C-alpha cells in the first residue's frame, strides 16, 4: 500500500483510538480526556484537509482489506465521501468543544466521550465506505455507538427513547441487510460505482430490483427519518444537546440520507433507477415528509421537539434532490447535506445553551431570551432564517438548486412544495424569534445559571456562533472555491453526470 492508501485508515483511527483510550480513563482525568478528544478531532481534520486537496487534483485514496473470500472492506475517499467526511470532521471538532462545556461537572463523561468518538468513527466509516458491505458494517456500528448516547441521562424517558431508537434502527438495518444480500446474489458485487452496478442486469430482473430498492430505501429511510419511519427521532431529543446536535446534523440522520444518495447514484445509477420507475415514489415520499414534518413542528411547544420535526422535514430535501434527479437537483440535494448540517447543529447548540444557561426548554418560555443571551440568539436567528430559505444563508442555495432541478425535469409542482415548506418554516421559526427578541423577559428564568458577566460559558457560546457564521458564509460565498456548493457541483460533474 502506498501512503495514500493509509490515509482513509488513519482518518478512521484518529477518532477510534482516542475513543478506546477514553473508555479506560477515570472520570477525574479531565485534562487528558479533553486533550485526547481535541487531538483526535484536529488530526482528523488535518487528514481530511489533505485528502480534500488531493481529491480535487484527482488523486486516489483507497484502502482494501480482505474480510471474506470475495468480500472486501473498502474505504475510498471520492468527492462525495469527502463532502460528508469534511462535514463530520468539522462539526465533530465543534461538537466536542461544546460537549466539554455542556457536560462539565456531570457524571459518566468518559463513557460519553468514548461513545461519542465511536459514533464519529462510524459516521466517517459510513462516508468512506467503498462498497455496500462496508457501508452496512459501519451503519450498524453507528446504531450501536449512538444508543448509549441517547440513553446517557439514564432517566426512564431516555431509556424509552433509546428503546424505540434501537428498535427502529436495528429493524432498518435488517431491511438493509436483506436488500444487500439479495443484491449480492444477483450481481455478485457490492462495489460502489459512479453510475451504479445493477444496470448490467437484464430487464427480467426489474421486479426484483424494485423490491431491493424498496428494501434499501426503507432500511436507510429509518435513519433518514422518512415518514412513517421517523417515530424515533422526536423521542431521541431527550438526549443531551451535543448528542441531539450530532444525531440531527452529523451522524445518524445524515448517514441515512447519505446512504440514499449512495444507493440511487452508485448502486442503481440514476438513469437506471428512473427507468425502473422508483424515483417518482421517492419524490412523493420526500415531499410528503417535508410538509408533514413542518406541520408537526408548527404545533410543538418543546423547542427541541420542534427542531426534531424540522429535521424530519429538512432531511427529506436531500431525498427530494436525489429523487428528482438531474444535475441541478442532485447538487441541491447533496449540498443540503452540508447546509442542513450547519444550520441544524447551530439550532441544537442554541437550544442546549438556553436549556443549560436559563433552564428554558419550551418555546413559550423564550420571551426576551435575545436580551439575556444575544449572541446565542443571533446564531439561532441566522440558522432559523437559513432553514426558512432566506437568502443569503445556506438554506436558500439548497432550495434554489432543488427548485431549478424540479423545473428542469418538468416537475413544476415540487416548487410549490418548496414554497409551502418555506411558509411553514417561517410559521414555526419566526414566532420563536419574535418572542426571543421583542418580548419582555420574565422576572425570573426557569433555572438560571450564573456565568458572571458572560451570557454563558465560552465553550457553549463559540460553537453555535462559528456554525452560524459557517451557514451564513456557505450561502453568501456559495460560489467561492472549495465551498460546499462548488464541491457538490464537482461531485455531480465528476461522478454522477460525467459526459
Amino acid at each position: 500500500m502506498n501512503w495514500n492508501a493509509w490515509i482513509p485508515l488513519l482518518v478512521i483511527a484518529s477518532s477510534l483510538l482516542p475513543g478506546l483510550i477514553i473508555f479506560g480513563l477515570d472520570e477525574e482525568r479531565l485534562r487528558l480526556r479533553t486533550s485526547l478528544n481535541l487531538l483526535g478531532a484536529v488530526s482528523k481534520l488535518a487528514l481530511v484537509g489533505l485528502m480534500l486537496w488531493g481529491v480535487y487534483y484527482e488523486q486516489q485514496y483507497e484502502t482494501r482489506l480482505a474480510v471474506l473470500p470475495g468480500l472486501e472492506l473498502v474505504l475510498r475517499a471520492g468527492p462525495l465521501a469527502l463532502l460528508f467526511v469534511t462535514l463530520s470532521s468539522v462539526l465533530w471538532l465543534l461538537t466536542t468543544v461544546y460537549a466539554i462545556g455542556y457536560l462539565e461537572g456531570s457524571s459518566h463523561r468518559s463513557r460519553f466521550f468514548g461513545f461519542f468518538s465511536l459514533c464519529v468513527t462510524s459516521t466517517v466509516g459510513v462516508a468512506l465506505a467503498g462498497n455496500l458491505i462496508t457501508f452496512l458494517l459501519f451503519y450498524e456500528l453507528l446504531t450501536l455507538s449512538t444508543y448509549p448516547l441517547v440513553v446517557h441521562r439514564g432517566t426512564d424517558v431516555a431509556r424509552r427513547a433509546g428503546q424505540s431508537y434501537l428498535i427502529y434502527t436495528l429493524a432498518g438495518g435488517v431491511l438493509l441487510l436483506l436488500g444487500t444480500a439479495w443484491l449480492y446474489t444477483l450481481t455478485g458485487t457490492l462495489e460502489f460505482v459512479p453510475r451504479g452496478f445493477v444496470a448490467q442486469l437484464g430487464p427480467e430482473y426489474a421486479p426484483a430490483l424494485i423490491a431491493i430498492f424498496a428494501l434499501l430505501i426503507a432500511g436507510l429511510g429509518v435513519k433518514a427519518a422518512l415518514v412513517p419511519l421517523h417515530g424515533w427521532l422526536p423521542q431521541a431529543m431527550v438526549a443531551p444537546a451535543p448528542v441531539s446536535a450530532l444525531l440531527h446534523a452529523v451522524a445518524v440522520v445524515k448517514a441515512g440520507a447519505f446512504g440514499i444518495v449512495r444507493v440511487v447514484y452508485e448502486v442503481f445509477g440514476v438513469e437506471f433507477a428512473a427507468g425502473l420507475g422508483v424515483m417518482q415514489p421517492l419524490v412523493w415520499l420526500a415531499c410528503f415528509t417535508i410538509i408533514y414534518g413542518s406541520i408537526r413542528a408548527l404545533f410543538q411547544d418543546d423547542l427541541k421537539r420542534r427542531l426534531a420535526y424540522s429535521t424530519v422535514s429538512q432531511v427529506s430535501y436531500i431525498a427530494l434532490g436525489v429523487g428528482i434527479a438531474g444535475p441541478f437537483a442532485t447538487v441541491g440535494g447533496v449540498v443540503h447535506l452540508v447546509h442542513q448540517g450547519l444550520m441544524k447543529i447551530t439550532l441544537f447548540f442554541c437550544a442546549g445553551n438556553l436549556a443549560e444557561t436559563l433552564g428554558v426548554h419550551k418555546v413559550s418560555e423564550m420571551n426576551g431570551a435575545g436580551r439575556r443571551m444575544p449572541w446565542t440568539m443571533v446564531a439561532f436567528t441566522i440558522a432559523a432564517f437559513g432553514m426558512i430559505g432566506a437568502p443569503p444563508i445556506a438554506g436558500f442555495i439548497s432550495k434554489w438548486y432543488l427548485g431549478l432541478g424540479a423545473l428542469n425535469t418538468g416537475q413544476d409542482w415540487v416548487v410549490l412544495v418548496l414554497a409551502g415548506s418555506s411558509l411553514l418554516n417561517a410559521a414555526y421559526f419566526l414566532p420563536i424569534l419574535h418572542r426571543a427578541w421583542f418580548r419582555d423577559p420574565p422576572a425570573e428564568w426557569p433555572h438560571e445559571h450564573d456565568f458572571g458577566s458572560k451570557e454563558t460559558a465560552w465553550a457553549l457560546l463559540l460553537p453555535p456562533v462559528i456554525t452560524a457564521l459557517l451557514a451564513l458564509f456557505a450561502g453568501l460565498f456559495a460560489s467561492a472555491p472549495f465551498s460546499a456548493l462548488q464541491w457538490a457541483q464537482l461531485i455531480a460533474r465528476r461522478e454522477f453526470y460525467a459526459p
Partner: protein
Amino acid sequence: MTYALSVSLILPSVVLWPLVVAGILLLPGLRPAGLALTPLAALPALALSALPNGELSLPGVMLGGILMLDATGRIFLFLVSILWLASSVLARARMRAASCDTFAIMLLFAMAGSFGLVLAGDGLLFFAAATITGYSLCGALACATDRQATKAGKVLVVLLVVSDVLIFEVLLMLGQAAGSVDFESLQQAFSNSENKNVVFGLLLAGFGIKIGMLGVHFWIPPVFATANAELRPALVALIFAAGLLGVLRLTPLGQIRAPEVAAVLHWLAWATLLYTVFVGMSQNQRRFIPGYVAIALGSVWLVVLSACLQQPGRWDSLAHVSAAVLIQSGAGLAATFLMDKPNNEGVSSYSFRSLLAALQWVAVLLLGISPLGLVWAMAGHVSSITLLSVMAVIVLLGVHALLQGDNDPEKKPGERYASSAAISASRPVEFSHIAPGVVAALITVAILAAAYQLYQGMMTEAARGLGIIALAAMAAVLNARWCVLRLPVLPAGDVLLPITRGLLLVRVGVGRLLARCAAYWADITQAMDRRRRPETKRIDIAGYLESLLLSWSPALSLLLLLGLLAAWLAAL
C-alpha cells in the same frame, strides 16, 4: 476608465459602511462614535449617486454576484439615500437610549440592505438585499413598545414572507429559463417566456405586496400609522427600492407587449383610486390617511406599467420622465408621512408651527403634482386621464389629512374605530370640513390642466375629462364619507384586515365542526385552543399514530408490511 474602476470599487463600501457602523455601535467603548456616525451612514450612498456608472463582478458571492450603478440605480440610490438620511437623523435621539441597541442594529442592517437593493446587478443579490431590508425593518418596528406597532409589524412580516416566496418562484422560473441570474438575462427570459401571464401574476403579487398594490396593501395604513417617525422614511424606501425597483429590474419594459395584463393593471389602478378615496376619506385619524396616499400613489406605477405593456415604444419617453416623478413622489410621500411629527413633538413657537404647517401643505402639493411629467409624456392617451385622477385623489387625501388636525390621544387607533354614533357626535359631516380639500384638489387640477394645455395644446378633451373626474371625486368623497360614517364599525386601519381575521375565525370554526364530527381531529385545533381553554382535551391523531409507531408491535408490523410489499413487487 480608471474613474469607472474606482466607482466599481466604491460600490461594496457603500453597502458595507452601515454594517461597519453597526459593528462600531456594538463595541462598548466605541458606542458614542457609532452614535455619531449613524446619521452619516447614508452619506456615502448619496455621494455615490453623483458618480458615473460602474459595475463590479463578485464571482464568489452567492451564484456569481454583480454590483452595479446604472442610470436607474442612480435615481433610486439618490432617493433611497435621502430617505435613509432622514431616517437616521431622526433616529439618533432614540438610539442614544442604552436599551435601543437592537433597534439601531436593525435600522443599520435595513439601511445596508436598501443600498444593496439598489446596487444589486443580479436577481439573487437583489433578493438577498430585499430579505435583509424587509426583516430588519420588521425588527425595528417590533422594537417599539407600542402594542399596536408590534401588531402592525406582524402583519408586515406575514406579507413579507408571502412576498418573498412569490418572488422566489419568479426568480426560479426566469433563472431556469435564462441559465443565469443577472438582470439582463432574466429580462430576456421574461421576454421569451411562454408563460408570461403567470410570470406577471407572480411578479405583481410578489412585488405588489411591497408596493402596496390593492388587495395586498393592507400592511401600509397600520404600519405607517403606528411606526415611529424615524422609521417612516425608511419604510418609504422599502416601497420604492424593494417593490418598484424589483418590477423595473425584472420586467423587460419596452420589449414586451401584453395588452391583457395592461388592461388588468389599468383597471386595478382605477379600483385603487376608488378604494383609497372611499376608505382614505373615511379615516377619522390623521395618521392613517397618508397610508392611503401611498396606496393611491402606487397606482401611478400601475398606469405606467400598463401603458408600456400596451405600447412598448412608450417606455423610452416615460423612463426619462419617471426619474423626476420618482424622486419627487418619494420625497413628498416621506414628508407626508411625517406630518404628525410636529404635533407630537409639542412645538410651542407659533411661527415655527406656522412654518411647519406651510411645509406640510407644500409636501402634499409636491406629492400631488409629482406625476405631472408622466401626464405630459402620455398626452392623448387614456392613461393621462387616470394619472390626473390619481393626482386629484392624492391631493384630496393629503388635504383631508391636513384638516384632520392633531391626532386624538384618547382614541385607540389600533383597536377599533368608535361606533358610528360616536364618530358622528365628535366629527359631524360638515361641508366646511371637506370643502377646502375639494377646492385644493380643483385648484391643483386647474393648474395641471393649464400646464397641460400650455405644453400639449389638448385642453378641450383633457379639461372635459378632468372636470368630470373632479366632480365625480367630489361627489364620491362627500357621499362616501356620509355612508361610511353610518356604518356600524370600521376596522383598524384597513377594511381588509378584519377579512384576514375573519378567515382565521372561519378556520377555527371549521376545525371545531370537524372536531365534533370526528373525534380524532388533528392537534391543530387543540394547539389553537390550548391557551384559550386549557381544559380542552382532544385526541391528537398525528400524535396518537406516532405513539403507535413507538411501540414494538406496530413498528415491526410496519416493517413487515414493507417486506411484504417488497416481496409482492418482486413477484410482479
